[in-house]
């Protein structure tokens, strides 16, 4: 194992992509993803990474070029955020059912208007059902590890689905963190070259992306859905192998200090690290809270979430997306839906906060905790709380 070094998290992602020895990168610059593709272009320019780098004229074309490249059998990567992801949206829905294992980093950022460049999850949640595997990371080390794992998961013949690794923009993408790199030999042993089943090549012609009639469309969707659901087992298998190789173990749902907890925070993305700090601080004050963090969002690890969350009395969901005109945030919504069939469910209180990168310091968690516990006591829990609004 190599030593710990400090590096900007975006650059760690680029280094992971280099170690994965990608064949094609197609990218368009957008804040806060830019440092990733800038560094990749340097790696290509310096001959450290042997890949084709296509400077496309939009994110729509970035994902379109990725589709073409992946269809040709090349290991393909891109990164985007916010408006860029929205522009790609149409093609996201084409890439997944075509079973093209593209890997993409999304440096999560708010979707305007008003125009803002900072972080929340409105970009990815708007595309949550596009059929990609979606992983959320909480720190740089995890981002690095998950980027390598993403290629292995995506290209597994039992999966063959594209993967999005979500990192919180700025909050994670632009910070310098310590991490332990992995050497090329280890990555090579873990990640074999992409061996596609069908490719765009004249020696063996195939037709991809055909047009369907209603008589067969539902079956194609079912095939996609089954593949996505069944990928959960493969994802866990890949993570287990990575854990054995590096000592860094990942699970779909992770618990922190939950053994004796009555109340837990449920977090996703970089809130998870903050959440652990909060749990430590609250426990010092004698409040028995814990944390459940969700790493895998698609396929939604329903069983793992149920077995984790049903143990507690109160579940406080902390998420970064306001579902305009909806019932609650998407994370709480999924959890509530998953629990609907159960007889005894915990109290679920949803907090939407940190929109457009607004800082959510640890004290705010105390406030949310208090609000939730009081509302539960009074029986006045709302469907969700938009937290920290200035009146």
């Amino acid at each position, binding site marked *: 194992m190599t030593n710990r070094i400090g590096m900007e998290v975006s650059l760690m992602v680029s280094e992971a992509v280099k170690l994965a020895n990608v*064949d*094609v990168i*197609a990218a368009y610059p957008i804040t806060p993803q830019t440092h990733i593709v800038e560094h990749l272009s340097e790696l290509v320019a310096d001959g450290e990474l*042997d*890949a*084709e780098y*296509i*400077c*496309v*004229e*939009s994110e*729509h*074309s*970035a994902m*379109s*070029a*990725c*589709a*073409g*490249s*992946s*269809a*040709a*059998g*090349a290991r*393909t990567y891109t990164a985007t955020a916010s408006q860029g992801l929205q522009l790609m949206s*149409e*093609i996201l829905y*084409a*890439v997944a059912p*075509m079973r093209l294992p593209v890997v993409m980093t999304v440096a999560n950022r708010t979707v305007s208007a008003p125009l803002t460049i900072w972080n929340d999850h409105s970009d990815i949640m708007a595309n949550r059902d596009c059929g990609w595997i979606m992983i959320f990371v909480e720190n740089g080390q995890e981002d690095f590890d998950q980027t390598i794992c993403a290629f292995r998961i995506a290209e597994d013949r039992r999966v063959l689905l594209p993967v999005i690794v979500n990192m919180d923009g700025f909050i994670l993408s632009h910070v310098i963190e310590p991490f332990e790199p992995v050497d090329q030999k280890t990555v090579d042993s873990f990640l074999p*070259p992409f061996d596609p089943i069908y*490719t*765009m*090549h*004249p020696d063996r*012609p*195939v*037709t*991809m*992306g*055909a*047009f*369907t*009639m209603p008589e*067969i469309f539902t079956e*194609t969707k079912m095939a996609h859905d089954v593949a996505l659901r069944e990928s959960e087992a493969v994802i866990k298998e890949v993570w287990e192998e990575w854990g054995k190789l590096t000592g860094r173990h990942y699970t779909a749902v992770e618990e922190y200090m939950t053994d004796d907890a009555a109340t837990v925070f449920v977090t996703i993305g970089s809130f998870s690290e903050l959440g652990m700090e909060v749990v430590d601080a609250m426990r010092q004050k004698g409040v028995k809270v814990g944390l459940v963090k969700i790493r895998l969002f698609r396929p939604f690890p329903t069983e793992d979430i149920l077995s984790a969350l049903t143990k507690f009395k109160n579940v406080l969901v902390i998420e970064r997306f306001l579902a305009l005109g909806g019932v609650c945030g998407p994370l709480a919504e999924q959890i509530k839906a998953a629990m609907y069939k159960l007889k005894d469910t915990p109290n679920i209180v949803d907090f939407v906060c940190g929109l457009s990168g607004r800082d959510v310091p640890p004290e705010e968690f105390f406030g949310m905790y208090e609000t939730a516990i009081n509302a539960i006591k009074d029986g006045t829990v709302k469907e969700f709380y938009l937290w920290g609004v200035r009146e």
Partner: protein
Amino acid sequence: MIDRYRVYAPNLTNQKENFAEGHRACQGCAEALAVRHVLKALGDDIVIANATGCMEIVSSPLPLTSWNVPWIHVAFENAAAVASGMNAGLKALMRKGRIPKKRIISVGMAGDGGTSDIGLQALSGALERQHKDFMYVCFDNEAYMNTGIQRSSSTPFGAATTTSPSGSKSIGQATWKKNMSRIAAAHNIPYVATACSSYPFDLQEKVKKAVALGGPSYIHVLSVCPTGWRIPSHLAIKYGRLAVATGVFPLYEVVHGKYRMTAHIDEKSEKRRPVVDYMKGQGRYRHLSEEHIEEIQKRVDKEYEELVKLTEL
């Protein structure tokens, strides 16, 4: 002119049909014919990215396909970008020794809507990037035929479509046809040409030339649409020839920026036929008055003369 070749035609062209029979194009579809000719000229070592449109719909109803060559459809506006990706992917894999080295042409194909409207940005990006072994073919039937004859920016002035209908206050399409070939040529690419399936050998020669010059190349093929143009289906070839003979759709090529009127069609010594010969009989122009046709004649004359001047540069 094609009569000259009748006896020898089978020997002059690729016998293999990479666009298979049994597709679902309308009767008399000159676009299907154009695709067939383009594929004959391209040969086997190609990969195609096809935009959403007539050809995609008629040729790929799952689980059937009309394509004997690798073919992919992703969306409406991105044929050029998908072809760019295939081009880059194949290049990288060959360089890394993962697949054998071989010259493979990445071909983007789209209709006039998928090219001059929604696909223009992706096309411009691909041409600007100067991909080698990259070719783009626009099959121009002058409207969104597949969705029911709506106007595009390639619909000619005066043509009635379902979104530019003629009426007491409308002459139909009120703006002039976007000049896609000139726009493509402005990207300073090695080869740009116009072609028409009524002139199959000219079309095939242009495709071969585009391939020989390496790319990126752009070929704009006028593809007569009997359904949308409201003409009898057996007259598609005739109307293609009339489009050329009247100067409405001149055939030319631009090799490294140098314009040249091509082949046997409409050399300067020949007198162009009046546009009315082309327009009469087409239902989409039925409502036009003599004044309108005169206006169109003036515009066609002006554009034709401009083009001739370009060839003299």
